[in-house]
């Protein structure tokens, strides 16, 4: 097998590939990569590629092709993994842009490109956050993380500060990303002030809507979000788009408090009708499901208790902004949980 060299920044994807290919080498740039080669040809894996699990690096070109650069498919384009002859002479710009004067395009999928938008994982005290983040990194090695920031608004502002792209994806700490979800969607310029929210599957009552789903947020609007608002997502922008696909399983039922807290907060929002664009038919069905279904599931009784308590609180304090805002204060929620579950 030929030498395989990872070129660019050492992302977690490099670590994962290193586990798979013990002889994987690393170089910060193409020239250094070429200087360390000992085989007659060599592979380059650029740091903005996600290698397809099925791709076979034992590929060997026919003898008469071994003096030509081979470029493999990167999603639907030929600009991904390359196989170079050891003594190839190319201009540094050719290497930089992966646009070669003399090349052979190979119709084998080797990789998918890094998505256009940053991805940030936001966790606080979710017991399964590390596990969920590790799963996300398998799919999205470039995903960043914001952890332990007090206040949901501040955590999102900090996430926006980490990003360079105009929009960024947010994954919650309890989100177990669906196998079929990818982060490849991009939006046109006139849609860049829209908050996009995918559906998540609730493991207790099987509701499937935006609560706990992956979000695509406009970076600048998130940086300027009104920290006094109750529902962070819908206060970033008045424009909101519910995406039809399911992005994740919302694994919030990890212990009594986290389960109760998630149900309480969501049912306060539903029953007080603070979410812009909320439809009565859907709200009623969702509230009813939260308050009645899933007792037999893990921590299902805490989910129902939190939902009933949240529904009562939301109905009582409908329109009372300062009372509703308390659902973003985790210390207050913990006290409320203790009062509710000890009574």
């Amino acid at each position, binding site marked *: 097998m030929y030498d395989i060299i990872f070129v660019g920044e050492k992302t977690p994807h490099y670590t994962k590939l290193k586990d798979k290919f013990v002889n994987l080498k690393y170089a910060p740039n193409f020239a250094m990569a070429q200087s360390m080669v000992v085989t007659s040809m060599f592979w380059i894996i650029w740091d903005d590629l996600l290698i397809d699990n099925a791709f076979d690096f034992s590929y060997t070109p026919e003898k008469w092709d071994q003096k030509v650069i081979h470029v493999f498919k990167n999603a639907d384009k030929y600009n991904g993994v390359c196989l170079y002859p050891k003594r190839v002479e190319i201009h540094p710009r050719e290497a930089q842009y992966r646009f070669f004067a003399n090349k052979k395009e190979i119709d084998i999928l080797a990789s998918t490109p890094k998505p256009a938008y940053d991805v940030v994982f936001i966790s606080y005290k979710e017991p399964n956050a590390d596990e969920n983040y590790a799963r996300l990194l398998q799919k999205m090695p470039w995903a960043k993380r914001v952890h332990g920031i007090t206040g949901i608004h501040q955590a999102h502002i900090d996430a926006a500060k980490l990003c360079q792209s105009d929009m960024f994806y947010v994954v919650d700490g309890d989100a177990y990303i669906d196998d079929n979800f990818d982060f490849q969607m991009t939006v046109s310029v006139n849609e860049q002030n829209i908050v996009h929210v995918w559906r998540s599957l609730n493991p207790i009552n099987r509701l499937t809507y935006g609560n706990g789903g992956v979000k695509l947020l406009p970076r600048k609007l998130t940086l300027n979000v009104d920290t006094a608002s109750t529902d962070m997502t819908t206060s970033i922008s008045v424009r909101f788009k519910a995406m*039809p696909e*399911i992005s994740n399983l919302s694994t919030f039922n990890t212990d009594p408090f986290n389960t109760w807290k998630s149900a309480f907060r969501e049912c306060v929002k539903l029953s007080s009708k603070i979410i812009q664009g909320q439809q009565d038919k*859907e709200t009623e*069905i969702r509230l009813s*499901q939260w308050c009645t279904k899933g007792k037999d599931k893990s921590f299902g009784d805490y989910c129902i208790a939190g939902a009933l308590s949240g529904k009562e609180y939301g109905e009582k304090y409908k329109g009372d902004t300062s009372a509703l805002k308390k659902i973003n204060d985790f210390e207050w929620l913990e006290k409320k949980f203790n009062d509710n579950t000890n009574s």
Partner: protein
Amino acid sequence: MTTQIVKSLYHVLDNPNFNKDCLAAGQIKSKDWLVKKVEDHCPDLGIVFLCAGWYATLATLLFESKVIITKIRSFDIDSSCCEIAEQFNMPWFADEWKFKATTFDILNLTYPLTYNTLNDKKEKITLTDMPDTIINTSCEHIPNFNNWYSNIPHNKLVILQSNNFFELDEHVNCVNDLDDFASMAPLSEILYEGELDLSKHGGYTRFMRIGIK
């Protein structure tokens, strides 16, 4: 409120392919029964694959019910069904294809499914969908049922109906009772199972299973 099924009749009655049997009392009762049980047990269906959907009158009843639906994709191998199905579901078809019918053999379904469908100019459009719910109310018509059923991923919501009307030649997969149905279509979690006596509407019993595969 007049159901869209009635409103659509003015249009579909002119279609020479239209089979009025879709409005038979047994058909409507069976679908109404399904809608009521879904409202009670699993009112959020998300993205639905309606398999062997025929004219998709079930989709109309679901859209008009208390059930939350993201979108419905109806598949039937009979190419004459699409136009009528879309007529019955016109408000949702017109709403960015919240409903869409496609001629497709459900034995070739994959999850997710990338498939070609026709727009109103009869141009081919490629769609990809991953369902949350799979409905099949014609299990008695499905040859190779095991192949179709085993293809459905685990943890999906499935809603199935079959019957014991063995007398019809096209009924290649009838069941005797609910136990028979359960062994044919096992579920990891049963949300509802029951039977509907249709002895006055053809002399048979319809069976239904709703649950998580």
